């Protein structure tokens, strides 16, 4: 089953929206395409470990992830969060409802904590330009993103909070 989450690539001082398409099917392998650099490729291990701390397992399925546009190089560790959420959504552990209305960015620690990333302001500006409802970023980046009006900015501590947010099992307030 195919799901989509949205991320953002910073080039210069602007950002470009990156669509992360996750497809789950029968099998065992993991493919990540769309010119990921080494830091992005390493995210598989960080995500697997973070999922473990939430008592989820890496899905026992074949997972193909495409980061579109596929010909722009994807750099850095900030894609951990949207990739993890894509995998959880494809595995039906997270409700798909609102996930496509948000841009997600954040680096994952092995215990699921969200680490701050660079370029959050251009990312938020771009998200507003493209009509997204809001952005989900690590809590340390929240004030930076909140500069942008007309956008719901949520600063999250860890992957668990993001899952609860989309499943509606916990309420969060956007940063002012």
């Amino acid at each position, binding site marked *: 089953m195919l799901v989509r989450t949205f991320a953002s690539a910073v080039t210069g*001082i602007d950002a470009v929206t990156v669509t992360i398409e996750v497809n789950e099917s029968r099998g065992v392998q993991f493919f990540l395409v769309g010119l990921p650099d080494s830091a992005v490729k390493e995210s598989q291990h960080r995500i697997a470990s973070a999922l473990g701390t939430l008592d989820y397992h890496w899905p026992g399925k074949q997972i193909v992830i495409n980061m579109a546009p596929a010909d722009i190089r994807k750099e850095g560790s900030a894609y951990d969060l949207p990739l993890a959420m894509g995998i959880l959504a494809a595995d039906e552990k997270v409700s798909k409802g609102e996930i496509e209305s948000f841009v997600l960015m954040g680096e994952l620690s092995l215990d699921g904590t969200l680490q701050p990333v*660079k*370029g*959050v302001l*251009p990312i938020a500006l771009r998200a507003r330009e493209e009509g997204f409802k809001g952005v989900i970023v690590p809590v340390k*980046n929240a004030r930076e993103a909140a*500069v942008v009006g007309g956008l719901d900015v949520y600063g999250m501590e860890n992957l668990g909070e993001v899952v609860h947010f989309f499943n509606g099992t916990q309420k969060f307030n956007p940063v002012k």
Partner: protein
Amino acid sequence: MDFSDVRGQENVKRSLEVAAAGGHNIIMIGPPGAGKTMLAKRLPTIIPPLTLEEALETTKIHSVAGKIDDHTALMTKRPFRSPHHTISDVALVGGGTFPQPGEISLSHNGVLFLDELPEFKRTVLEVMRQPLEDRVITISRAKSTVDYPASFMLVASMNPCPCGFHNHPEKECMCSPGMVQKYLNRISGPLLDRIDIHIEVVPVNYDKLSDSGKVEHSSDVRGRVVRARAIQAKRFENVKGVYSNSQMSSSMQRRYCQLDESGGKLLKTAMDIRGLSARAYDRILKVARTIADLGESENITAEHISEAINYRNLDREGWAG
């Protein structure tokens, strides 16, 4: 820190006021201990706060460089960057394998202070030539091109010679004439051409230093600078990305920097006698516009032009004695 910490040096303070009001580049030349670095470090006390558009631009750059801490939303103070002279060209201008903004972009809408200018590697200084003119730096890699804004105010300081005492009123300069010229040549002609204000910093005598009389505070100077900037904001309100006279394009210059007859004659004479370049001509006009704004004058008079011309001492031959 306050301007009043520095005793005397009224003409240097005036030139810094002009530079801050219009965002013009300035170089201070003088012997060691005269007060160049001290004044430059107090420049942030007289520059105006960022406007909303400038703040957004500057914060974006600092966001991309990962320099926004978790307490900051939008930056309010102008950046003041002062890299050590061992800096590499990539760190100054930006780039690297994964392109990142350099010091010139981190000082966008702010001040880049290069202390001891001749101590910087020549290649590093030359690499600044294009951004000083275009106010943007284009970093090309095999797979992509990235543009970073770089509209900064350059403040530089230097000694006139290796021993530092050339043209000193009391001390003897120990350098041979060739050494002095060679030292000054470290700052190439094209780079100097791009600096709008050249000011000689002369050492202050004891009486002036110990004088506890009235000295202007930063807040007074800042008031004048802020008023001049307000005039510029109104002038450029319909132009995107232009906030000060130094950022004017040639067409804007033709519109806003009209000279009267005496002013025009004065400039022509100066250009003929000193052999000033077309770029120098443009920059003199912009500085004159700022001086007129500081005097809250709608027109540029011969007086304003005269002050602006006198700020380009180094273009004059025979500087090295």
